[in-house]
């Protein structure tokens, strides 16, 4: 609210008219007619916040503009709209906005249904990692610069400090996104072990990265060990049992080589059997049989 009032107070255009214009028409207006006005206002805004860029004229070099826009968004990140207003005006830096790629990565994970996996996006993943290294370089160079100027890095609050802060925050955010991506995928991989057992179907295997496959194998091994320790197969009995026997229909030719705990039978396709639930469950979860109810 504070920032909004200050900007409004200096001219009263930027936000007060928002209700009348859509963001895009407003942005065109800014682009065409209010360019100088906006520059002026941005400078006023920064000065009022007391964290100005030092130069008198706002020469919008690419780097500076990016810094400025990021700082602006940082200062007033509650005002999401500011970004949409500024975007056509300074399109380039915003398209490369920090953290955008990491956000895309997480969004991609979340875009499919619960418990589903997307293809492991190693391309985007590497880009985010590269962005992180870039941030780290810039962060270090800014800190070096401050040290060369003889400032105390801990306490100094100049433009470089805030620049470094932005790089740090962007890096941390990227890290969180990357970790969330990998960790959530790991969670799904674990649930896969429970659902389909220790053998990965081809179509899922293609979606995993190399380390994820390794993790899958290790985890299923661990689970097996734990279950043999308890002398109990935990992957069956997923729903409370009503009757020890259930009626099932065989969906695939699984042959007659299967020995159940109490009998043997020929499981030809489409044949119907009356089986022990614990025996049938493993076939049901693998999609080889279906339970007939009613």
């Amino acid at each position, binding site marked *: 609210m504070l920032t909004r009032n200050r900007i409004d107070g200096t001219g009263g255009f930027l936000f007060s008219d928002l209700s009348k214009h859509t963001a895009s028409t407003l942005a065109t207006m800014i682009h065409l007619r209010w360019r100088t006005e906006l520059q002026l206002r941005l400078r006023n805004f920064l000065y009022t916040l007391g964290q100005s860029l030092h130069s008198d004229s706002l020469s919008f070099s690419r780097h500076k503009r990016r810094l400025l826009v990021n700082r602006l968004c940082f200062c007033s990140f509650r005002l999401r709209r500011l970004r949409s207003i500024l975007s056509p005006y300074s399109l380039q830096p915003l398209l490369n906005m920090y953290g955008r790629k990491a956000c895309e990565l997480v969004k991609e994970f979340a875009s499919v249904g619960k418990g589903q996996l997307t293809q492991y996006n190693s391309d985007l993943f590497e880009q985010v990692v590269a962005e992180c290294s870039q941030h780290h370089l810039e962060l270090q160079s800014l800190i070096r610069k401050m040290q060369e100027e003889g400032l105390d890095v801990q306490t100094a609050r100049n433009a470089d400090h805030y620049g470094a802060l932005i790089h740090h925050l962007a890096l941390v955010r990227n890290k*969180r996104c990357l970790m969330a991506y*990998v*960790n959530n995928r*790991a969670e799904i991989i674990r649930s896969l072990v429970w659902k389909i057992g220790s053998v990965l179907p081809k179509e899922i295997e293609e979606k995993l990265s190399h380390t994820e496959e390794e*993790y899958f194998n290790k985890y299923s091994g*661990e689970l097996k060990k734990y279950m043999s320790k308890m002398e109990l197969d935990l992957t069956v*009995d997923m729903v409370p049992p009503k009757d*020890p026997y259930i009626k099932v229909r065989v969906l695939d030719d699984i042959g007659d080589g299967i020995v159940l705990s109490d009998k043997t039978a020929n499981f030809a396709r489409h044949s119907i059997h009356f089986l022990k639930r614990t025996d049938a469950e493993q076939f049901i979860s693998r999609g080889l049989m279906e339970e007939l109810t009613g």
Partner: protein
Amino acid sequence: MASSSMDGSIPTMDEFEALLSTTDVELLKRAWRSEKASPEILRYDTDLVSRLTEQIQLMEETVEEKSTSGADPLSLSLYQMDLDRTLFLLRSYLRVRIQKIEKYMFHIRKTDELWNRLSKGEKDFTSRKGSSNLHAYAYRYYASLVFESNEFSCCRCIEDLKQHLEESVLSKLPENYQSVEKQSVISEEDDMVPEPRLDTFVLCRSKEYLSGIQLEDGPVDDRSKLFEMEPGVLYFICYKSIKPLVESGKIDLL
């Protein structure tokens, strides 16, 4: 598996229920329910589970015996059903625990109190701090031979997940940002560790009259009021407020 209560004189209904509520199956059911409802991991009852495992084995033998000797098929199927249900309870109990442990494994490992709630051997062989990897491995190998620990896979899981995260993400980040627990070296707390939300609400029922429960939610001036619980009445309450009572077994979660 209420077998002992069936013989001898016919008990009255009250006695019967009192007996029923102390059988191991009933205890397990209670533990299972609480475990399902509580946001954090509860104490693992080693004795209960080992008793139950023995009983299940006994039961399996009985069923086996009866089926070969050609006993009444109806009673056999009743036995089988009873066995299946108990097995389901036990499996589900262990499953719920494993899932919870997996979700919060880093948090559980760094909190002594929670770590001790798992089964006995673990904390000896996965030392939380320091201790070179080699040590940990040796301990683990030794432990896997010696201890009959029940959730022993947990620490392996942590190692595996940690390794997985390190290989895919952390090793590629700048050096000050490589910790699993912290966002960067300047974070004072472990701010990357997911923790269970203790301020969620749970349904619960008390076994006895309880008074003096401090509510931890709601407006500040309400918090000084103490809350009372009647036995057998359902309450919907913030988990944090009744946490110690759940741990001591005075309150059952539903």
